[in-house]
């Protein structure tokens, strides 16, 4: 009995993908449904960055797309919590691809999960628009430009803005506070390179465990280093606790604290008195222009918080994908990828964005400074945009790419 069931399962499993690709090759939409999966952290340390906000971003994109294009095909959205575990994430995505007919996954924050999911996506020949994870490995050592687009930001883009701008202001000696795992190390390395390239020097670094409960000791070491800048190569709760302690210990009086992965969500959690004067790079700010304000207010009405670059990027990615499916008339991976790469991206998130051959989506990034309490006129009015970093400068140049698929 058991054996027969297994056999039946095996046969149907082997037939399913074949049937799917046969349909797609016919230039149609598989199952007449375009299915999008948002894989994210719904409850852990990073859920405030993406999480439900990213799902909402995808929903809004579908809403806008339907209103504008009145598509003939159906669009479905599913979402899941990967709990920041690579195995949970890749199993979920495998299930989505194999049994639920999901065509594209997005968000996928947490670099560890993203790299695992990228492998499954390539194996199953589907599409992954990564709007959440930061590691540049996704467009270098682990690149898969036929299936994976790195959409919103990466450690290079985060590091480059402040690394260059702050160093050029004459604040040319740096000390790093680094989360002791792959993401933190890569962020520290990218920033250190930017600092050195602009004539600065790195005086040292202290590596702290992930989710350390107290940062005062590490900050005291940063203080003792006499570096002009203290770079925080960490994220989420670690960044928040570092900044809180930096303020308390009077570090901010003589040294500049630069959060290397900081978004508006962190600033909101800390409040302006604690964060004023901080500089960092973000890929989106709600109060840039009329379009961003409209998008963000709509988002706010459902989320009770302004979007940072992750939900905004997810919105843009899903919209761009759906437009490509509409234009190509199919959800076949190769055709849609070609269409997406051929079309510039213009929406509330990006202006004149484009997807390069290595899978990197490039667009303008913003070097921002946090306002003083007295300058802030309304809730969430937090940033002064100091500099728009043009797309070509913001991301790692193709010449430096370590992606095997695009190397000549």
């Amino acid at each position, binding site marked *: 009995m058991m054996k027969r069931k297994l056999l039946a399962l095996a046969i149907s499993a082997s037939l399913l993908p074949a049937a799917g690709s046969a349909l797609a090759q016919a230039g149609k939409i598989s199952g007449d449904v375009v299915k999008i999966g948002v894989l994210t952290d719904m409850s852990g340390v990073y859920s405030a960055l993406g999480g439900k906000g990213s799902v909402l971003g995808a929903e809004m994109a579908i809403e806008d797309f339907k209103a504008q294009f009145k598509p003939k095909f159906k669009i479905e959205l599913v979402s899941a919590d990967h709990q920041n575990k690579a195995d949970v994430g890749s199993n979920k995505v495998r299930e989505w691809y194999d049994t639920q007919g999901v065509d594209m996954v997005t968000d996928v924050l947490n670099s560890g999960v993203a790299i695992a999911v990228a492998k499954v996506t390539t194996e199953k020949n589907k599409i992954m628009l990564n709007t959440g994870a930061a590691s540049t490995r996704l467009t270098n050592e682990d690149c898969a430009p036929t299936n994976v687009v790195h959409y919103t930001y990466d450690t290079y883009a985060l590091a480059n803005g402040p690394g260059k701008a702050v160093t050029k202001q004459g604040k040319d000696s740096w000390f790093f506070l680094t989360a002791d795992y792959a993401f933190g190390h890569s962020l520290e390395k990218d920033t250190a390179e930017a600092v050195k390239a602009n004539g600065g020097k790195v005086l040292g670094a202290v590596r702290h465990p992930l989710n350390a409960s107290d940062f005062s000791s590490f900050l005291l070491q940063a203080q003792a280093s006499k570096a002009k800048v203290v770079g925080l190569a960490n994220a989420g709760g670690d960044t928040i606790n570092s900044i*809180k302690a930096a303020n308390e210990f009077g570090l901010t009086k003589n040294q500049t604290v630069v959060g290397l992965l900081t978004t508006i969500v962190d600033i909101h959690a800390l409040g302006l008195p604690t964060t004023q004067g901080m500089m960092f790079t973000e890929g989106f700010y709600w109060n840039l222009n009329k379009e961003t304000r409209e998008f963000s207010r709509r988002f706010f009405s459902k989320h009770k918080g302004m979007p940072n670059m992750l939900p905004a990027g997810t919105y843009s990615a899903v919209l761009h994908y759906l437009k490509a499916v509409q234009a190509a008339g199919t959800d076949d991976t190769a055709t849609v990828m070609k269409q997406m790469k051929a079309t510039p991206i213009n929406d509330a998130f990006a202006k004149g964005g484009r997807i390069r051959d290595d899978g990197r989506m490039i667009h303008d990034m913003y070097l921002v400074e946090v306002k003083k309490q007295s300058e802030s006129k309304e809730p969430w009015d937090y940033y002064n945009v100091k500099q728009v970093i043009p797309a070509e400068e913001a991301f790692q140049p193709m010449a430096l790419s370590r992606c095997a698929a695009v190397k000549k």
Partner: protein
Amino acid sequence: MTEIFGVPIQALFGQLMLGLVNGSFYAMLSLGLAVIFGMLNIINFAHGALYMAGAMFAWMGMEYLGIGYWWMLLLAPIGVGLVGIVIERLMLQWLYKLDHLYGLLLTFGLALIIEGFFRDLYGVAGQPYSIPEEFAGAFNLGFMFLPKYRAWVVVASLTVCLLTWYLIERTRLGAYLRAATENPKLTQAFGINVPLMVMLTYGFGVGLAGFAGVLAAPASQVGPLMGSNLIIVVFAVVVIGGMGSILGSVVTGLGLGIIEGMTKVFWPEASATVVFMIMAVVLMIRPAGLFGREK
């Protein structure tokens, strides 16, 4: 400047001081755990969640009712204590006769529920809570820049620890409590309401966690995960000090805070594990803990 292993001696004093501050939190939390374990035989895994609830209450008081830090320092522990009493009456009291494991599992489940509740309401990014004005600024101690607030944390927690110790070891009420632990039936026969005392003990123990939570609110991220990051270390402290030993938990809390602080200077990557290494060694040499008595 004099140096020890390449670290200036002044910086070392600074780190010692910080270790003491962190140790104060460990001491207060492990004290609550020790009291609860000593009197109720319950390994209270919900302690971290209730510590977090204390900090959240402080923030909620400020946000919704405009109640400042000082009042919340009193009100939040009482609130947490009341939550504790409800938990004890509704659930824990049925478990005293059973194996420790049941209490542990129940309170662990409760911790997840409490955390999930706040996470669902407020997300994980945390809430802003600033240092009370009286403690803005810092003392310049010469060798370091000690924020006034951190100094207050040490003073407040040592006072609370001392008072608790005095209450349990030196007063009549404490004597009743200890008697009730030793032999509940006999104590009851003398006309002392043991269930009531046990209930209040649990309320008091978790109230201590709530107090620590309010103390922590201005110094760290006020969010649903703040307790779970800390509680594992605190349990290690309790194990090292000896389960149920009041003096042991306070001394070990402070001591381990300092050792951890030193590790942050000499080998920062290991600072999250050093407490557990010590725990492993202590368990091998003295299974009942440094201050515990073998039964």
